[in-house]
């Protein structure tokens, strides 16, 4: 507690740097992964290569990647760009599979009837497939957000500032309170943003809420 009262400014600053790395990575991963996930689901030939590639990317440990990416792209080791690229690689790997699952979860019936009543393929994508994919997509987004928040702390060992800096600094100076504060704030941040995702999903998908309320009504088969 004493550590906290003396260092809350540092804490705020690190939280801000943390978010400045997490948010762009999450947004980029999402924007890259959703079209790939869609293609993997709708184009049969694309599925296996896409999912295999994504699996391989995900198998690479992050710490070495924080070292190798700057060498490959000629970036500064401690630059924010380095962290964002690494996080986006993992984020995309996580999200492609979720997005593919999300599009797979759209009932075939709904797709067919949308086409049958005259949606063009773009209209079907925007007005039917995307909205119906939201619930599963958001489940993936939650994993993405929480994992990214936790993973970015690794970047602190190569000197990129974020909440993980509290771990390295606390460890080197032997301050347990600092490490604990880092753990608590990181987990809290994850909980808050996760809650934000849930809330957003509720607002975007009113029909699932009503399905929850009316359990007896015949389900979509």
């Amino acid at each position, binding site marked *: 507690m004493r550590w906290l009262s003396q260092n809350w400014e540092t804490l705020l600053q690190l939280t801000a740097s943390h978010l400045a790395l997490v948010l762009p990575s999450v947004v980029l991963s999402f924007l890259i992964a959703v079209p790939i996930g869609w293609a993997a689901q709708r184009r049969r030939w694309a599925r296996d290569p896409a999912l295999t590639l994504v699996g391989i990317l995900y198998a690479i440990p992050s710490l070495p990647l924080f070292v190798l990416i700057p060498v490959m792209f000629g970036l500064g080791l401690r630059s924010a760009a380095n962290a964002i690229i690494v996080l986006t690689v993992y984020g995309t790997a996580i999200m492609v599979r979720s997005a593919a699952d999300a599009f797979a979860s759209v009932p075939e019936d709904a797709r067919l009837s949308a086409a049958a009543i005259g949606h063009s393929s773009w209209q079907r994508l925007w007005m039917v497939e995307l909205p119906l994919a939201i619930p599963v997509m958001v489940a993936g987004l939650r994993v993405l957000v929480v994992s990214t928040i936790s993973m970015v702390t690794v970047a602190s060992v190569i000197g990129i500032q974020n909440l993980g800096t509290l771990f390295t600094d606390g*460890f080197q100076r032997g301050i347990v309170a600092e490490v604990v504060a880092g753990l608590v704030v990181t987990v809290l941040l994850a909980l808050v943003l996760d809650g934000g995702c849930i809330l957003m999903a509720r607002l975007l998908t009113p029909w699932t809420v009503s399905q929850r309320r009316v359990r007896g009504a015949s389900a979509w088969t």
Partner: protein
Amino acid sequence: MDLIQQAFAWLIAPTSWIGDSGIARRLSEHLVFTVVVVGVAATIALPVGVVIGHTRRGTTLVSAATGAARAMPTLGLLTLLGLGLGIGLVAPAIALIVLASPSLLAGAYAGVQSVDRQTVDAARAMGMSEPAIIRTVELPLAAPLILGGLRSATLQVVATATLAAYTSNTGLGRYIFAGLKGREYAELIGGSALIVALALLLDGIFALVQRVTLRDPHRLPVTTERHHP
């Protein structure tokens, strides 16, 4: 490019491979550490996951454990335990067991739980005891997902063992930390490449094992999540 050449030169130089901090030594430390940690974690988590899947009690435990493991920053846990237990191997081993267990737990749980209830009912109706049901019906059918959990956990531990070198003198991760500190870029980049190669090799071996043992096309693809630093 120059850096990459230097790293390559370091990797193939015989002198890099021998000695107390040679690649051979670090690689075997890394592998032994990984095997021990995954072994201990599996001994604890797999039976628990199977029982939860069989009885369907305690499913919230599974989702809470996987959620917590995902949100918990590995480095935070490592440094905290390092401060508490000193800079030996015990602290990182405990941290890694804690972090690897949820994937194994989830794999075992999901595997057993995915077995068709009617199949299990039929086995029970034939007079099989509960342990016999688990052994002869549920475990074989759950094998793909259990193996998937094992794959996730192993990759996660290989990755996290790298980070463990931050608080203790072990494994391939040393090259990264020593390289960062002493500005030994050849070691830093060469070591990083080694770790990536090791992880991909292990992933490939698992992929192969899964393909060979689970050729049944009716089985679902393995998609347990994992979390690693």
